[in-house]
């Protein structure tokens, strides 16, 4: 008994729950056909779901433009169904309208009051065409549809653009360069059309865009919607994320499909053997126009064109290792945007590391609405030297279109401690010259120093000196040669040239004899010095020259008389001293030496002045 009460309670709770679950109220205004003939009527049904009929205040028929209400009384119907445990209740009110003229007519919004709430429907447009354009009324004969002996059945009603069409919805119409746009192509079809064998009819292109396909549900379950008073089933046939690759006005081609459908107005009994009659139709979505704006100026350094919303993570596989061991630097960029085209950031790896090209992996997520995911760059680093090394913070720059600004993400890394020393590289093979086959020969030992700042030859003074010295040598040789030649050919000049040296030589000898205490030789040298000088300068042979001849020559040379007398007197003194029986004293010789020197210089000066 207690179990029965429990079961009844549970069942009641389920019913209450299901009833509550079904209480989502919707009101739709539906027409029997969007296109009618001038002599036909259109049924307008106000379908109220999710409520009990008792809660609905009887609605009034909606007003119409171009249509006349046939009868204000509505035919009312109720429906209740349980599908997969879901209870659905609906109540409907139907009115008929007759067209007044051909053309476009409208049934305005209807107002429905359910309890305390009032709902409004959307106006519905109906196209009224000449009756001749409408198919003839269907025969309702029991056998008429499939009689083998009767006339062939009438052609089924044509499938119109209102029966099946493609609509494209896009996430945005004006975007930045490389900003993501999601486009959803949906096929709308009336329930009776039952499309099958659908395929893309033509190539589809989106020039100026990078494209990524978004995932679709593997089992396509149509949704029911009401558009302009007509109930449609809707399925997504293609979802695409596009990224404009250039700025400007861009166009995306229509998506065209070809599908087999049957007319929603066809009578299933009006076909042979009740077979459904399909016809092939093509439908195309509208062209999509996108305005792509260039990115604003002032992009920070390191910006490579990434647009979207991203995060950055950087990690090292290890922080302590030995020279020659490997570690990995991993950068992960995660977010929403064109993940595939994100370029690798350029971490500033110290030169001590041997670095290899990064391995790149892409992981896409949530690809049914927008492209998002992560891109991972992994560098292999091998230190070639020891030390504590710090890789500067890794930066990633992108443009966030929602904020309309550039964002710089940065991620710090811990220092790396490298220990040990590297073994010298050893090559397994060597070239014919003895160098490693595929490696450098590292060291050269002999420095052979030069100055670090090398001055070119033509800017060095010593270069010109080196050139000049030999030329000077040649010049000196020429001068010496000329002097030698003149000495040999011009006796007067030669004696004149020799006068001073010989006089100095004899004076030197006289000084020597004075020191030695040899008066004879002293006075001979002193006399020879003075007399020889005069003879050389005047180009006369002094040996055997009498005093008178000497005075005559001096007179010719323009030497003053008192100077002549002084000279002759000095020569006489020298002769007297040489031949005197008593040798002259040293002091006397020194006095005569000084006198001789003075006379020599005096006569030399006078001769110079006379000659010049």
């Amino acid at each position, binding site marked *: 008994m207690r179990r029965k009460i429990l079961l009844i309670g549970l069942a009641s709770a389920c019913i209450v729950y299901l009833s509550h679950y079904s209480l989502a109220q919707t009101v739709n205004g539906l027409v029997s056909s969007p296109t009618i003939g001038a002599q036909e009527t259109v049924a307008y049904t106000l379908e109220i779901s999710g409520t009990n009929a008792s809660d609905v205040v009887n609605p009034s028929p909606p007003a119409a433009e171009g249509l006349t209400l046939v009868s204000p009384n509505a035919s009312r119907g109720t429906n209740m169904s349980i599908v997969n445990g879901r209870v659905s209740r609906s109540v409907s009110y139907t009115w008929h309208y007759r067209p007044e003229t051909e053309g476009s007519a409208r049934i305005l919004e209807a107002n429905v009051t359910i309890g305390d709430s009032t709902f409004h429907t959307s106006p519905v447009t109906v196209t009224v065409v000449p009756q001749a354009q409408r198919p003839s009324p269907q025969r309702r004969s029991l056998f008429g549809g499939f009689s083998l002996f009767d006339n062939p059945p009438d052609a089924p009603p044509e499938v119109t653009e209102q029966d099946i069409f493609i609509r494209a919805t896009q996430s945005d119409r004006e975007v930045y360069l490389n900003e993501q746009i999601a486009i959803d192509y949906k096929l709308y079809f009336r329930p009776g059309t039952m499309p099958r064998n659908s395929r893309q009819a033509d190539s589809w292109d989106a020039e100026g865009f990078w494209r990524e396909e978004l995932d679709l549900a593997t089992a396509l379950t149509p949704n029911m919607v009401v558009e302009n008073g007509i109930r449609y089933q809707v399925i997504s046939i293609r979802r695409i994320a596009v990224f404009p690759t250039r700025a400007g006005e861009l166009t995306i081609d229509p998506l065209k499909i070809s599908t087999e459908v049957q007319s929603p107005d066809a009578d299933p009994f009006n076909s042979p053997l009740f077979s459904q009659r399909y016809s092939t139709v093509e439908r195309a979505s509208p062209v999509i126009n996108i305005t792509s704006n260039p990115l604003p100026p002032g992009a920070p350094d390191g910006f490579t064109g990434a647009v979207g919303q991203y995060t950055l993570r950087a990690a090292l596989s290890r922080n302590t290792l030995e020279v020659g061991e490997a570690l990995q630097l991993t950068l992960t960029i995660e977010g929403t945007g064109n993940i595939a085209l994100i370029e690798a950031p350029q971490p500033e790896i110290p030169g001590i590391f041997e670095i290899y090209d990064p391995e790149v992996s892409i992981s896409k997520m949530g690809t049914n609405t927008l492209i998002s995911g992560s891109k991972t760059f992994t560098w292999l680093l091998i230190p070639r030297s020891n030390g504590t090394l710090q890789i500067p913070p890794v930066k990633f720059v992108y443009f966030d279109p929602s904020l309309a600004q550039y964002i710089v993400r940065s991620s710090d890394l811990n220092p790396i401690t490298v220990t040990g020393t590297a073994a010298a590289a050893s090559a397994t093979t060597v070239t014919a*010259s003895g160098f490693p086959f595929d490696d450098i020969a590292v060291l050269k030992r002999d420095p052979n120093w030069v100055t670090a700042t090398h001055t070119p030859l033509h800017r060095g003074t010593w270069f010109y000196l080196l050139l000049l010295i030999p030329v000077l040598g040649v010049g000196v040789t020429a001068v010496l040669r000329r002097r030698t030649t003149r000495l040999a050919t011009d006796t007067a000049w030669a004696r004149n040239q020799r006068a001073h040296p010989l006089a100095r030589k004899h004076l030197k000898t006289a000084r020597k004899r004075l020191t030695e205490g040899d008066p004879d030789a002293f006075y001979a040298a002193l006399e020879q010095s003075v007399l020889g000088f005069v003879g050389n300068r005047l180009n006369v042979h002094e040996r055997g020259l009498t005093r008178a001849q000497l005075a005559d020559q001096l007179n010719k040379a323009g030497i003053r008389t008192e100077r002549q007398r002084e000279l002759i007197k000095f020569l006489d003194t020298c002769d007297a001293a040489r031949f005197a029986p008593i040798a002259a004293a040293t002091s006397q010789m020194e006095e005569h030496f000084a006198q001789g020197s003075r006379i020599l210089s005096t006569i030399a000066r006078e001769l110079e002045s006379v000659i010049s």
Partner: protein
Amino acid sequence: MRHGALLFALIANVGFANAQQLEDALHLFDEANGLVESGAYAEAIGQYHAVLETGFASGALYHNLASAYFRLDEIGEAVCYYELARRLLGDDPQLLHNIQIVEAKIQSPFSELPTPFWRAWWYTLFGQYSALRFLISGLGFYLIACLLYAHYIWSQTRNNWHRRARAGALGVGLLLLLIAALVSGERSSIQGAAIIESTTLVTETGSIDVPEGVKVSFIGQTDLGAEVSLPNGVRGYVNASVLGFF
């Protein structure tokens, strides 16, 4: 006498200081070589630069410095210093081998314009010898010519062979000295530059990515940056800081 002593002291002092610097340079050079052998390339590079700061350089120093940079995968610097080494070492087989290895690592997308014939001839004839060799040879011929002239002046020899010998020695001597000056001038001027950091070359029509290690011709510094010419002849501007001159 006093002035002579002072001059001698000054010369001796300068000579002593110079010898001390040279000894310091040699010491640092040996230390740097030891660091290279132990794999401490970054420290070795610092030591080699310390040698250069003493005012001395050598082909071996530039060579070893380039090798250390190469070990650290700094290809641009390696190219630059190997080229500096080539100026002093000429066609040293070890240097040429290393340059070949380094150039194989450069990801250069540029084809190279053919070398002008006169440049190839010049290099074939004179590129393998230092300016000093030409200088010494030239001075030798020049001295011989001067001695012959001096002999001619002194002895007044009227001899055709003597005249030809004088003219020939003088001509050869002056020619060799001219070549020495040209070689010296060429090797002490900037011959080019290597891209030491991947960069973008801005041209009149757009921009070109230039990888590290590519050798370019330096044209001059302008307001737009350093004007360079790529191996394929395309001219453009780069930031001067990415150039390593040699």
